[in-house]
């Protein structure tokens, strides 16, 4: 389990490759990798968005992420996991969050990565303030439930 909070833009694929290359044990047991990448869109809730500032609670954020991943590990046989979340000033098309889960079987990898994403969105202390093209700013009020059909 590795958790990173990044104040700089990152390439999710380079991060996963570097993480995998550094792995040693258990390689041959990995049959499934489920990855989710959240990216900043340029349009949200009816408005064109030119940028975003992501605030977090240093200490609590890492603590809650660790708790979420530990809960996932208790429910599914996870071989390894990597979660990276961006903070600070973000531009459209940049990566906000990366969740990667390695497991022997695909059902476990899918279930665990989705669980981590949903829990992260409902429990990890991050807050988004959008900078609109109109020069207005707005804090997002709440996240939606990603399990429900919209």
């Amino acid at each position, binding site marked *: 389990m590795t958790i990173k909070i990044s104040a700089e833009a990152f390439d999710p694929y380079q991060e996963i490759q570097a993480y995998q290359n550094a792995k040693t044990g258990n390689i041959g047991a990995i049959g499934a990798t489920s990855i989710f990448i*959240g990216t900043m869109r340029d349009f949200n809730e009816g408005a064109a968005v030119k940028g975003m500032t992501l*605030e977090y609670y240093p200490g609590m954020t890492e603590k809650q992420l660790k708790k979420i991943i530990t809960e996932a590990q208790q429910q599914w046989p996870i071989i390894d996991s990597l979660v990276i*979340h961006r903070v600070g000033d973000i531009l459209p098309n940049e990566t*906000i969050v990366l969740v990667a889960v390695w497991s022997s079987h695909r059902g476990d990898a899918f279930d665990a990565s989705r669980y981590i994403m949903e829990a992260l969105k*409902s*429990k990890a202390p991050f*807050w*988004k303030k959008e900078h609109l093209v109109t020069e207005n700013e707005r*804090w997002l009020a709440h*996240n939606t439930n990603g399990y429900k059909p919209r």
Partner: protein
Amino acid sequence: MSIKVRYFASLKESVGRSEDDLTITGLLTVNEVWNLTNLGKPLPENILAAVNMEYVEFDNIVKDGDEVAFFPPVTGG
């Protein structure tokens, strides 16, 4: 006893500061911490509370040295 109080995101902007240091005597709940540091200001709807970086209910009792945080619903990911 001494308590650190922190505010985040839109709540930080509406209270106009990021933290308070509270020194009092006697037992206190999280709700009373808010009332003491934000005299007369009602707690905005949907605000969440944490003590020492764990989510708590507002009737949770606060101890000396605790860090109490108030913030709006989270919107990461």
